[in-house]
């Protein structure tokens, strides 16, 4: 069992319990980004989550997108940052930009 601090172990546990799971991964960063490339946030169909892709700045938006991905099964690439049109809604206060890939497990 995972202790909740390792999102990939959590994702495997959840999937084995029969829960629907999405995995979000930081794939690119520019400038000052709070979490490095390769970091994960994992989300289940109820909106429970473990891990992080930023310092808490964009997790809410990623979770919303992840629920769509769990429903549709189609992976998508999200981009967040001050240069993005969503900057005033969800952005990175640190001024960096990140691209986050969200996919359904299984």
């Amino acid at each position, binding site marked *: 069992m995972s202790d909740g601090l390792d999102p990939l172990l959590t994702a495997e546990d959840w*999937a*084995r319990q029969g829960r629907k799971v999405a995995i979000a991964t930081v794939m690119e960063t520019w400038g000052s980004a709070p979490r490095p490339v*390769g970091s994960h946030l994992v989300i289940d169909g109820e909106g429970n989550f473990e891990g992080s892709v930023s310092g808490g700045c964009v997790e809410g938006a990623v979770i919303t997108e992840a629920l769509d991905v769990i429903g549709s099964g189609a992976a998508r690439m999200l981009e967040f940052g001050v240069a993005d049109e969503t900057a005033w809604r969800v952005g990175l206060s640190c001024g960096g930009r990140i691209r986050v890939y969200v996919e359904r*497990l299984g």
Partner: protein
Amino acid sequence: MDLASLSRLNAARAARRAAVLVTELAGGRSEVLEEGDTAPPHLADAVRAAFLSGRSGLVETEAGQLFLNVHLPPPRIVAIGAVHITQALARLAGIVGFDLTVIDPRTAFATAERFEGVDLVADWPEDVLPARPLDAYTALAAVTHDPKIDDFALAEALRRGCFYVGALGSRKTHAKRVERLAAMGLAAEEIARIRAPIGIDIGAASPQEIALAILAEIVESFRHRNLAGATA
């Protein structure tokens, strides 16, 4: 990612084996490659670079855009001998980012006062290492000068493929050690992996300087370590 890939990745991480998860962005297909696995030709260079640097990232290939997420076990140092050099090595290792364990059965040396905050085991290597196995992401530095303590750990480090194996002692001392290890059944080319005299040559004189020379040699070995198979 499919559950089988995730399970394989988690199993490799739990066993302290390096692994890279390759995700095809167009189709979403994923594959786990462990260090030493034969990577597909279009990926070989990128996979090798990822294992060496530990850096994840996107790569463009003839098969489209791929994301390589590399998972390396955290490198660590096991020092045999709770001596003056090891006290300095314990401090320096923390600064450079290596976890460190000290093993020495001599309770006069292996005291909590001398090694405050250090993972210290006052027992024989042959009693400690079966439960805490050495691996390819471990550096072993044997610095007791005592064959009864050092030799088993050195042999075990060579058998387990530690990325660095170093032993304190003069060339003359080492020549005798080579004979003993050969008598233990180790092949000459395995024994030749031992770095002795220990530490890069910076003319180190004090225990602190010797610790620095050892740590520099460990970093060099880690960054230049052999990745046979990953290039195939």
